[in-house]
């Protein structure tokens, strides 16, 4: 530790942290307030706004849709992303260098542009069902996390272990599942979590793809805020924060959180 850190700088950082964490504490307080409007500090203490979430059918439906989308999109992205990440590392010489750029395109292209383009070409142009269009959009936006994170894990994997197994008679597919995959387990978990969180929170891509009867939770929250200004939204927000905490606990258990700064 550098002991010569100026006091003023430390104070500045402390203020920034209050700025970062304060608003979230305010949301939690507002969710517990026994008033029909949003306020902080909470007046009275109630959990009725949490019950209210499940009394509004739009929230019930969109929570289910968002969870389904997040699991399916992450699953699909891993299914195509893991082989791609493997190919990028194991068969680097065969593949052109621009190929890895292709897999990060969904981050480079603004999400809102992707959402609109999918609406035009896929949802309307090819008249695919709403849920399928949403699933395609979400799979695309989470794919870069899957390919990049797993690729980073694979880059430190010693492929001579794999070759040893194959030369000893193990079949390539079996070798992949018993030798390669267990060695990049932490990368797969990290990719899963980043992808899941990205999908659950997505607004810009889903915005154009939701339709009559099918919406996602963040879009439903946006719609609700524009009509009602009661603590229900604060309590939905708290639910999402609880989900985030759960996810962070998993990351901490398996990888240690510092991996997120790498």
């Amino acid at each position, binding site marked *: 530790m550098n002991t010569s850190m100026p006091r003023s700088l430390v104070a*500045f950082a402390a203020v920034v942290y209050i700025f970062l964490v304060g608003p979230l504490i305010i949301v939690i307080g507002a969710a517990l307030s026994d008033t029909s409007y949003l306020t902080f500090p909470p007046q009275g203490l109630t959990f009725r706004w949490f019950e209210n979430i499940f009394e509004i059918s739009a929230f019930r439906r969109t929570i289910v849709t968002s969870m389904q989308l997040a699991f399916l999109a992450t699953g699909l992205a891993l299914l195509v992303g893991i082989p791609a990440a493997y190919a990028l590392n194991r068969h680097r010489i065969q593949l052109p260098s621009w190929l890895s750029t292709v897999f990060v395109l969904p981050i480079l292209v*603004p999400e*809102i542009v992707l959402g609109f383009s999918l609406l035009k070409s896929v949802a309307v142009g090819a008249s695919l069902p709403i849920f399928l269009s949403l699933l395609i959009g979400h799979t695309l936006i989470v794919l870069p996390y899957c390919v990049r994170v797993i690729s980073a894990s694979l880059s430190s994997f010693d492929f001579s272990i794999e070759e040893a197994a194959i030369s000893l008679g193990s079949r390539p597919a079996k070798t992949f599942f018993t030798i390669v995959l267990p060695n990049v387990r932490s990368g797969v978990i990290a990719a899963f979590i980043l992808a899941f969180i990205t999908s659950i929170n997505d607004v810009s891509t889903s915005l154009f793809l939701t339709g009559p009867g099918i919406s996602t939770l963040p879009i439903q929250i946006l719609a609700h805020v524009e009509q009602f200004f009661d603590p229900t939204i604060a309590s939905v927000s708290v639910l999402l924060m609880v989900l985030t905490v759960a996810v962070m606990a998993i990351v901490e258990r398996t990888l240690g959180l510092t991996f997120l700064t790498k």
Partner: protein
Amino acid sequence: MPKRFAGWILAFPATVLVALFLIVPVTLTIATTFGDGSGPVAPYLDFFNSGFRRTVLWRTLEVSLATTAISLLLGFLTAYVVSRAPGRLKSILIIAAVFPLLTGVVVRSFAWLIILGKNGILNNFLTWIGVIGEPLSMLYTEGSVIVAMVYLFTPLMILTLVGVLENIPDDVIQASASLGATPVATFRQVIFPLAVPGLIVGAVLVFTGSFTSYATPQLLGGERQMMMGTLMYQAAMVNFDWVSASTIATIMVVITVSVVLAMTRIAKRLNPMTT
């Protein structure tokens, strides 16, 4: 499986996914703006001839640049403190930055509705201490959008820069100190230049994120402070004018992609570690 093609076969499904559902649709969106029959650049003339749309474009640039500048300042100084903090405290500080980052955009923008509203916390507090007589209208101003965006992107900046600052070898800093540099001089002449590539990466992430955002300007700016994202949504889903929405989309792609390309090139050139 022929060995020569093994790599291609494995990368094939993901490549097809991106090609079919991203490259083709986005190219079509861009293409419609050049071939709608009324002349090749007509939609762009329409866009730039409209005073309202020009204002939206300038406002978006202004908000994004202000957001980038403020979060660079907050993020860099904070990341410096975090990167030099002792182990246990450092992990707590990193968790405190990761948590807001993983909490969704909608939730974090919504928090500012509670703070800045007419009956919001800030107004109540200011009235209570007697600074103001009656509540100010802080929502639906450019300022409220910028505050929420800075709030949105500062954690990203901190985390990007903590990684960069941690990679600066301690030897370099100790060498500077042992040669008589004050902490401030070390910060300005050693740490800052070494962090410039990271600062550029952070700035690009924040700029492109703000420039193409939707939820925050929608919630905190409303109709009055429309930005490119909200303008595009309105063109597509309220007016059903897909050519004009595609034009806005193309302008967004051109601006963000050129910023990314230009800045990564500059970052490479400025990196003192590679020269």
